[in-house]
């Protein structure tokens, strides 16, 4: 019994010291981690809406559904939204920018874990570039990558579906 207590005490001490140390490091790094995450999101949003200056999240219940985008003069120029589809071996997350009349401005794949050299090519401009200028109602012209139909479809279908949904929401906005 005494032995057990001693073991517990030693392990407990080590845990308390470790916990204290981690709390200290966390205090030091947390602000930077949050800032990094924000900067990253900002730059991704800028990439799909190059004209945009302010990105105001449109929230509903417990999350951001899309971002209202305004340019330098404060004019409303469209929405940016995230879409997620199931690819060949992973979930493919995409960020897309759309003008108020439903035209896609740019598409960027945020995260994926598809087959390197094949499905993973959905992040490359030859594929994502095809979206620019197409209307959300008609994405037929976007060609799937040869040999990577499933990964390509994940992006195309998820953007189309989510885009139509967001389009219904924003078409009356100014």
């Amino acid at each position, binding site marked *: 019994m005494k032995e057990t207590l001693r073991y517990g005490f030693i392990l407990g001490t080590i845990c308390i010291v470790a916990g204290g140390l981690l709390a200290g490091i966390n205090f030091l790094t947390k602000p930077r981690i949050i800032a990094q995450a924000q900067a990253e999101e900002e730059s991704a949003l800028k990439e799909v809406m190059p004209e945009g200056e302010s990105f105001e999240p449109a929230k509903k219940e417990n999350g951001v559904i899309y971002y209202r985008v305004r340019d330098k003069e404060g004019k409303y120029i469209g929405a940016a939204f995230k879409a997620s589809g199931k690819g060949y071996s992973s979930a493919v997350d995409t960020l897309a920018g759309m003008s108020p009349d439903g035209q896609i401005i740019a598409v960027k794949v945020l995260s994926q874990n598809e087959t390197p050299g094949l499905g993973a090519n959905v992040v490359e401009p030859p594929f994502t570039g095809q979206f620019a200028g197409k209307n959300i109602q008609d994405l037929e012209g976007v060609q799937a990558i*040869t*040999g990577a*139909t499933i990964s390509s479809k994940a992006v195309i279908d998820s953007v189309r579906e989510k885009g139509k949904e967001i389009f219904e929401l924003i078409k009356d906005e100014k």
Partner: protein
Amino acid sequence: MKNKLTVNISPHLHNNESVSKIMWIVGISLIPAGAAGVIIFGLNALTVMILGILSALVTEWLMQLLAKRRITILDGSAFLTGLLLAYNLPPGVPLWLPAAGSFFAIAIGKQVFGGLGQNIFNPALVGRVFLMASWPKYMTTFTKPLNFDAVTSATPLAVLRESGVIENISYLDLFLGRRGGCIGEVCILALVAGALFLFWKGYISWHIPVTYTAVFAAFVYAFGGDGLFRGDWFFHILTGGLILGAFFMATDYVTSPLTRKGQVIFGAGCGILTAVIRLWGGYPEGVSYAILMMNAATPIIDRFTRNRIYGTMIPVNRK
């Protein structure tokens, strides 16, 4: 000579066949299928075959030189590996592809394990799977049959996978090989002729190929259609590489079980795996993966189907 064949438990039957004679005879039995491939897809197919064989021979020679083993490039086994690999390629591939595939098949699939008789996996299929994983774009682009302008077309199985409907193609066309596919797999008539020759010479037994095909057909018939027992099993047998795989690759002496019972288990496993991959898997075709998986299981099958040594008791407690 010690390493050339796995020695089964006695009693041994002796005959005068040497390993290389068997290899060359199997090679001869593959000629009709290759000739059919050249007729259907043009001289391109012949170039692919020659390059596959040449690269296999050169690699075998290099690897044996490096490992200071006896040079045995004329025993026919490397020739056969190169030829079978080429049979598993689409006819319109860039010419470095069969060379790279044969190199990998011989170097990694065979010589790394210690040469003929030591390899766990069928070298030609190792080469094909390597190419499939490395350059899927070329491995899934097929040329149209009997059309020498290199028009691409999908294989019947790829059409089935993409759209879910069976292409409108007659059984006769499939049987004669008028479809898109790999060089050596399309002409079922030629393949069956070669296989019958091997049966007649007694170089392959019915156990693996027949169980493979029968179990596969039964499985597809049961689960491949809209409801139970409505699958088009005949279509599935005639398309893809099933006949080539079942008669010429699953029967490879080195990588299949030794006993008759083991061979039946092996064939049944191949059949089920092929059907499962074709019906529910990510690829339209599953013959090569099925055979490789069963190759991996061969040591276990051998272990549990071992013949009892004549005159001994069944061991009660094996260590």
